């Protein structure tokens, strides 16, 4: 299987950059890591950049006058430059957060808690991750606003006709996921943003599963807010990004208060630092920003177009391989042009947890559960699924190991 003519990326060669994929494991099992939608593995240069920062120039950023502090600040802010460049967004409107969840919470609190009121509506979708549902529910509970859910079609797409009907004069925010972490669906966010803006609503795009895997142009999408996380794009945990429209950030009050985010503090009150630092209270994730900067440089060298092309090929291999497993159902689009390489499935007679446990004995790492998308699970009528998700280092060998392990799993549990 496979059409190598389309391949512009050598996954096997890239694996050499990832220590975890090349080091012998204690139990001698070969590692088939198919859980990159949960977190990606890290290339050596990211580990080295963070290590070098701590060993060579660890100092707190911004106000230090000594040279080492200036160097720390330069490496930290270079991380911001890299991230901003990757998604084509102004650096001053690129805010570092703890993760994508915190980026969404920042907007829910700094904008929503102040601007929403009785009768206002926040429109999310049934395929959102809990991180793009729960912050809105909490803020709606305080403000009297309502959270509405755009339905998903049986084919695993957003029902855009329904969305068009649901967006109205009461809609203040449309919050939508770019690529579903469960179904793999790629949503037409540019069209949705235009639809929302035409009705006077703001927009939040959860780009957590798109930025690591395909070219994402924040300017072209045009949303007011776009959130993603570092650890799914070859970077470290503990750092996320909010790419926001500069004028929104200027107009918003801060989210968290403390050091770094102020211009002046008196006993009477405080004034705020310039953006983006107005939204970065306290010592930021410095080593993490350095690591994320190195991750972005790695992704740029590989090429986001090449990563997308590779993952389309892997998604095709995965769908073909899963099709060979009797009793297996894929939940999500079958058209690789409209999906990422994160594939959810169920196997007749075998619970996803049992699939995950069995596959582990063959070194195949998949996720099992509701994937933090419980409203979607209820909507498609399953309690949980198993999910295999690929990245730039995924090879056909990984996919064949998945297929063989699933066939063996079915036999082991005696599924009819």
């Amino acid at each position: 299987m496979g059409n190598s003519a389309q391949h512009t990326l050598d996954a096997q060669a890239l694996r050499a950059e990832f220590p975890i994929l090349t080091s012998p494991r204690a139990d001698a099992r070969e590692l088939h890591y198919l859980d990159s939608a949960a977190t990606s593995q890290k290339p050596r240069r990211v580990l080295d950049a963070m290590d070098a920062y701590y060993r060579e120039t660890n100092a707190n950023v911004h106000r230090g006058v000594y040279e080492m502090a200036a160097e720390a600040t330069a490496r930290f802010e270079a991380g911001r430059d890299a991230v901003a460049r990757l998604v084509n967004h102004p650096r001053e409107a690129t805010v570092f957060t703890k993760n994508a969840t915190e980026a969404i919470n920042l907007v829910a609190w700094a904008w929503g808690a102040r601007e929403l009121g009785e009768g206002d509506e926040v429109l999310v979708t049934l395929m959102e991750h809990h991180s793009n549902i729960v912050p809105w529910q909490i803020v709606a509970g305080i403000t009297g606003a309502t959270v509405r859910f755009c339905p998903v079609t049986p084919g695993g797409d957003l029902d855009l006709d329904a969305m068009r009907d649901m967006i109205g004069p009461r809609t203040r925010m449309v919050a939508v996921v770019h690529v579903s972490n469960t179904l793999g669906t790629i949503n037409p966010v540019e069209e949705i943003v235009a639809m929302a803006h035409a009705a006077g609503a703001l927009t939040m795009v959860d780009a957590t599963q798109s930025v690591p895997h395909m070219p994402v142009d924040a300017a072209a999408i045009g949303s007011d807010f776009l959130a993603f996380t570092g650890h799914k794009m070859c970077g470290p945990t503990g750092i996320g990004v909010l790419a926001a429209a500069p004028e929104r950030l200027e107009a918003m009050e801060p989210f968290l208060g403390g050091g770094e985010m102020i211009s002046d503090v008196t006993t009477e009150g405080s004034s705020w630092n310039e953006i983006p630092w107005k939204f970065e209270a306290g010592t930021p994730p410095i080593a993490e920003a350095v690591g994320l900067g190195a991750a972005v440089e790695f992704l740029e060298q590989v090429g986001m177009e090449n990563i997308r092309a590779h993952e389309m090929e892997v998604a095709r291999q995965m769908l073909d391989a899963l099709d060979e497993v009797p009793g297996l159902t894929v939940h999500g689009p079958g058209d690789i042009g409209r999906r990422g390489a994160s594939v959810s499935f169920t196997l007749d007679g075998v619970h996803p947890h049992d699939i995950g446990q069995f596959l582990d004995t063959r070194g195949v790492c998949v996720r099992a559960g509701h994937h933090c998308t419980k409203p979607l699970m209820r909507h498609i009528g399953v309690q949980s699924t198993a999910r295999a998700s690929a990245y730039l280092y995924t090879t056909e060998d990984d996919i064949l190991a998945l297929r063989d392990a699933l066939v063996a799993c079915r036999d082991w549990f005696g599924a009819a």
Partner: protein
Amino acid sequence: MGALDDLYQQLILDHYRNRRGRGRIDGASASVHEHNPVCGDECFLDILVVDGRIAEIRADGDGCSISQAAASMLTEAAQGRELDEALDLVEHFRLMMHGEAAPDEELLGDAIALEGVAKYPVRVKCALLSWLALRDCIADYRETVATGG
């Protein structure tokens, strides 16, 4: 498949494929509905109490092989026991799953086969779901009786 045999003993697979005590009880003395937030697995547990004993116990719901086998084994182990005795049984099982008690085969019956699950922290919750539901079910029953409900 050493690791798998350890976790999925034949007895567990047998209870998974041929569930004992499955279903609901019409006119149950007490019922609880619990779920595992990790995986969304659900358990409905009903008991019928006659003269201070569990005259009938049934478990329903969907879940993985461990949770389903554990529920099946629970209905066998708890059937006919006095309520305090049943609570002691649940506590002994809970301690075994946390590696804090050596299993008492006479008390546990087939459920002793779940001992190996203790080595898999994520799966311990699967095994405990129905057993802890019985503890809550007995507490609900006693509260209802105490308040004359």
